Structure formats: C-alpha cells, structure tokens
C-alpha cells in the first residue's frame, strides 16, 4: 500500500507538470482552432531565454528572468499570433499545424545553436527540500507545481466566468460570429488568449526547468505528454487539461511500476485510444456540434 501510494504521488507530481503544459493547448484550440505542435518548445524556451539573458548581459537573475520572459511573451504570444496564426487560420487546421511544426524545429534548433546542446541547471524559486506525505517522498518543487496548476485552472475559471473580459473571451471561443455581432473585439480576445498561453508557458517553464533541467530537446517529451493529456481530458475545456494531465501522469507512473518499463509509454496511449472510442470529446470535453 505504501508502495502504491508512493507511485501515486509521483504520478500526480508528474501529471501536474503535464497539466500545466496542456492548458495552453486547450486555450488556443478553443479560441482559434489552432493545434500548436510547438507547445512543448513553448515550455522549453523561456528557461533557455532566461539563462541566455543572464549569460549575454551578465544580468542578475531577476533581471535576466524579466528580460527573457518579456522577450518570450512578445515574440511567442503576440508575434506568433500576428505573423503565423493570422495569415493561416482561414485555411483550415492543417497548414497551420504544419507551420507550428516548422516553428518547433526553429525553436529547438535555435535553442541548441544559440545557447547550448547541453542540459543546464536552472535556479529554483522554490526550496528543493523533500517532504513526506503518508510515507511517500515528494519535493516542495513538485508541491509548488501541483498548487500552481490547480491555482491557474481556478484563476482561469474565475476569469472566464466572473469577469467581463473573461466572458467576452468565452463568447469569442464559443461563437466568434455572434460575438462580433455583439460588439466584442474578437481579434483582441483571440490575441489575449495567445498572450495568456505564452505567459502560462513561462510559468510552466520556470517551475519545471529546475527539475527537468533546461535543455533544447525537453519540449519533445513535454509536448507529447501535454498533447495526450489534452486529448484525454478534453481539448475544449481548460479543466480538461488538469484532469487529463493528472490521469496521464498517474497512469504513466503505474505503468512503469506494475506493467513494463520498456512499454510504459504504451499504456497512456492505449488509454487515449479507449477514450477516443468511448468518449471522443475527452473526459471533460463538450461535444462539438457538427456543422452540416
């Protein structure tokens, strides 16, 4: 039992990381039907930019963090939306998805050539101590990630449901045409989601990198798991990312423990197939009406 608990807690800790990365997937999908295959790289890059700013300008850590984060939100929030999404969104999901694939190559290779092919240590804003929960070890870093993941979801739910801006954003997500008629600045709302996505990527990056280390290739793993998490939880619900992330994290941990370490990746994927066959819109997802 203690053993099971240890795996469970490890799975939740990992799952929270996937959840944090997956929120962005669901956000940009809802407002602009964009599948961002560079999402993993979005989480990888802020940490690298922070380290780069420190290295280039010899800046102290807080200044480096500020420069790196500001640069990232500007380029990959606003810039991404204006230069890549806007010209392509009318042409369907696929060309845009491919363009984000190309973007992910650019980000990955850019981080490797511009910074380093090696993993780098990233300073933690949270103490690295380990605490014991029911006899299972968990680090404060992981605790912080779990808290932040839940906090972000709560904040987003409140924002969407409880503020005018948020309701406008939701209206945009549900029906842009009607929203436009109602006088909601749809373009600005979509832009806002991209900025939020970039900001969330930064939060995820800063929290995850001290554990996973900052490395150009980290986006591949994080991106894949976040994608699976978003599908499992439901692409069109922000809280789907949280549920999906935690489930995938726990399933992954259990698979390694009780099934097979060399096939552990297969188990979350089989879960994904089952969910698609049983409830294609994801566990928490809304059914998307087919436009006939």
């Amino acid at each position, binding site marked *: 039992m203690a053993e099971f608990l*240890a*795996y469970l807690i490890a799975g939740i800790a990992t799952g929270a990381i996937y959840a944090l990365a997956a929120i962005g997937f669901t956000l940009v999908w809802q407002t602009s039907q964009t599948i961002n295959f560079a999402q993993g790289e979005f989480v990888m890059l802020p940490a690298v930019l922070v380290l780069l700013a420190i290295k280039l300008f010899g800046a102290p850590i807080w200044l480096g963090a500020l420069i790196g984060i500001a640069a990232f939100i500007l380029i990959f929030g606003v810039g991404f939306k204006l230069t890549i999404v806007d010209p392509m969104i009318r042409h369907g999901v696929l060309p845009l998805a491919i363009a984000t694939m190309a973007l992910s190559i650019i980000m990955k290779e850019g981080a*490797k050539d511009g910074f380093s092919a*090696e*993993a780098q240590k990233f300073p933690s804003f949270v103490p690295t101590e380990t605490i014991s929960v029911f006899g299972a070890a968990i680090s404060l870093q992981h605790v912080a990630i779990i808290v932040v993941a839940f906090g972000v979801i709560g904040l987003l739910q409140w924002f969407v449901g409880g503020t005018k801006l948020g309701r406008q954003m939701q209206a945009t997500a549900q029906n842009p045409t009607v929203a436009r008629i109602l006088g909601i600045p749809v373009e600005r709302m979509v832009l806002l989601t991209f900025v939020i996505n970039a900001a969330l990527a930064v939060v995820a990056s800063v929290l995850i990198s001290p554990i996973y*280390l900052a490395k150009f*290739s980290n986006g591949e793993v994080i991106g894949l798991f976040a994608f699976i998490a978003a599908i499992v939880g439901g692409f069109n619900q922000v809280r789907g990312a949280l549920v999906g992330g935690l489930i995938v994290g726990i399933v992954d941990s259990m698979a390694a*423990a009780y099934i097979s*370490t*060399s096939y552990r990746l297969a188990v979350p994927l089989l879960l994904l197939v089952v969910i698609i066959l049983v409830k294609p819109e994801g566990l928490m997802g809304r059914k998307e009406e087919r436009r006939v």
Partner: protein
Amino acid sequence: MNRHWIIAAALGMAVSLPALAQDKVKLVDVVELSGAGATAGTNWKNGIDLAVADINAKGGILGKQIEIVHYDTQTNPGNTRAAVQRAIDEGTYAVLGPVFSGPIGASMQIAQRAEIAQLVGGEAAGLTKQGNQYLFRTSLSQTAAMPKIAKYLKDTVKAGSVAVVWVNNDFGKGGRDAIIPELEKAGIKLAVDVATEQGQADFAADAIKVKNSNADAVFVYLNEEESARFLRAAKQQGITKPMVGETTLLGAKVIELAGDAANGVKGHVGLSIDAPIPAFQEFGKKFQAKYNYVSDHNGMKGYMAVYMVKWATEKQKKFDKKGVADTLRGATIKTSEEPGILIETTIETNGDLDRESFLAEVKDGKQVITATLPKINP
C-alpha cells in the same frame, strides 16, 4: 616598369603557390547534431574541432592543413548513409563519426566498400563483430568495460543483488546486455531490470521501483543528463544503496547537474577529464576555455579520433586512405609518439580498443580516482 610587374607577379606566385601546393587534407565528420543524439554528437564535434585547431596551429599533418567539414545525420540511418556517401564522394581522407550505433550500422558498409577508415564513437558490442576491417572505435567497448564493473561490484562493493537501470537506446541496451551475463558469472542476483527512455525527464517511478527492489547496489547506465536526473530522483526517494556506474555516471557534467545527489557515486571510468592523467586534464581545460562548458567522454573521443588519423598518416608518411586503416589495425599508439592520443591506446585487429581505465568515486562534488586498472592485454 616591366621589372616591377615581374617582381609583383613573382611575389604573387610565391604567396599563392604554397597555398596551392600545400593543398589541404579534407576530413569529414558525420555525426548526430540534431535528433536524439544531438548532445553526444555536439560534444564529439567540438572535440574534433579542438583537435583540428591544435593540429593546424602546429603545421597540420605532414605539412598539410586539415579542412574539417561536419555533416549532421539527424540521428537517422537514411540521412547518415547520404552524408557518409557524400563525404566519400567529396574525397574525405577518413570518415569521423557517427556516435550512435544505428547511424554507424547504416553507414559502415559504405566506408568499407570505399576502403576508407571510419572512426566512430559507438560503444555497442556488436559493431566490431561483423568483420569490418575499416571500422575503428575511439573508446573501450562495453564488452571490455562490463567485466571490470562486475568484478568491482562483487569484490569492492560486495553486492549480492543489483538493480540495473539503463537507457533504452543502443548505448544503454548494449550495456545492459553486456553486464547481465557478467553479473550472473559473478554470482550476483539481478534484483530489478529498469528500462528508461532516452531523454526521459521524470525518474520518480523508476527510483521508487529501484528502492522497492531492496538491491544491495544500483547499476546506473544512462547518458549524462539522465544520470543526473535519476540521481536526484533517487536521493528524493531516499535510496541509500551505493550507485555504481560507468563513465557517464561519474562525469563532471553529472556532478554539476545533480549537485549533492552525485556524492558517493562510484564506478569505472574510461575517458574522463578528471582522471589523474595530465593530458586528460589539459584537454579538459582547453575544451572548457573554448566552448565554455565541460566536455564529456564524447568530446575526448572526437579529439582522439583526429589524432588517430594524424598518427597513422605520419606513420605511413603519406596520404594513403586505405593505408590509414591498415596502419591503425593492430597498432599501439604511445603518447610519446603522439601526445594528442592522450593515453596509450592499443587498436585490436577487429577495431576494438584497449586502454588503461580507472575506478573512481565522487566525493564532495569531485571525481576522485581510487584505482587504475591495467589494459586487458598489456
């Protein structure tokens, strides 16, 4: 007037002629610069660049400057084959790389057919078992390293059971397949066999699994970064059993990334900039100065590969492509003949290497060599 022109022309000739006569020798490095092997490949490439810069600064090989070209394999066999073919078509003097055994497997026949020496960074046991006369390693093979580790586990660590944690790529799988029969021979029980993914970020579940196996010791066979992540996860889960590994567990990079978690780790080291050999440390300093980070063993392998080519060329006193392989086969390169080889190296006829190696331990964030192991066939 005329005379001036003639002098000017002659001067021009004098300046340009040596450059023409002393045409360069082209070396092509085909290596993993993107994809799964990018980190290892980049170290290898940097090691090569460092060696080429050193050699060229000292007048090149037999007076010829080395022209080095790097081609990326994307860690993909099809692309590797293209790149090696291109290297040969462009008249490379020898092929350097790749590091991963998949890309090596896809390209070794081509170099063999062209009768050109190929110096690779691969450690998997199978590479040198195919009778390819043109393939040369730059490090010990796993078949050479693992018996030393098994002996160490038995005699020094006195472990009755061992948990094996390995990365599921050619490097890790090769190591695992080599250590398990050795453990069996030494009468050590395999407590648990844990495969991990290349580039895996989260090792919590693996660490719990190892902890629950109650093994007397843990054998960790992962790449540097994954080693660091595993050590941190193991510390978090409170694993106190000795961690034993190979070169990739005890490197400076692991110590840097894992911090305290690396303390107490011990094992066998082939190439390490921390080894008590002045030439190794010298290399480490030069590398650090040039690239601003600490080289791993792949950086050393790349460096030595270039010097192996240099040594063979100077030995045969001519630029004969086929001769490089013939000269290297069965040779022993002494540091007195070629300081760039860093450590006396014997090349066996199948392309395997034999060298001295070390037993080491990490104490207070530093790698400390505890013993030097002789060559297998001294």
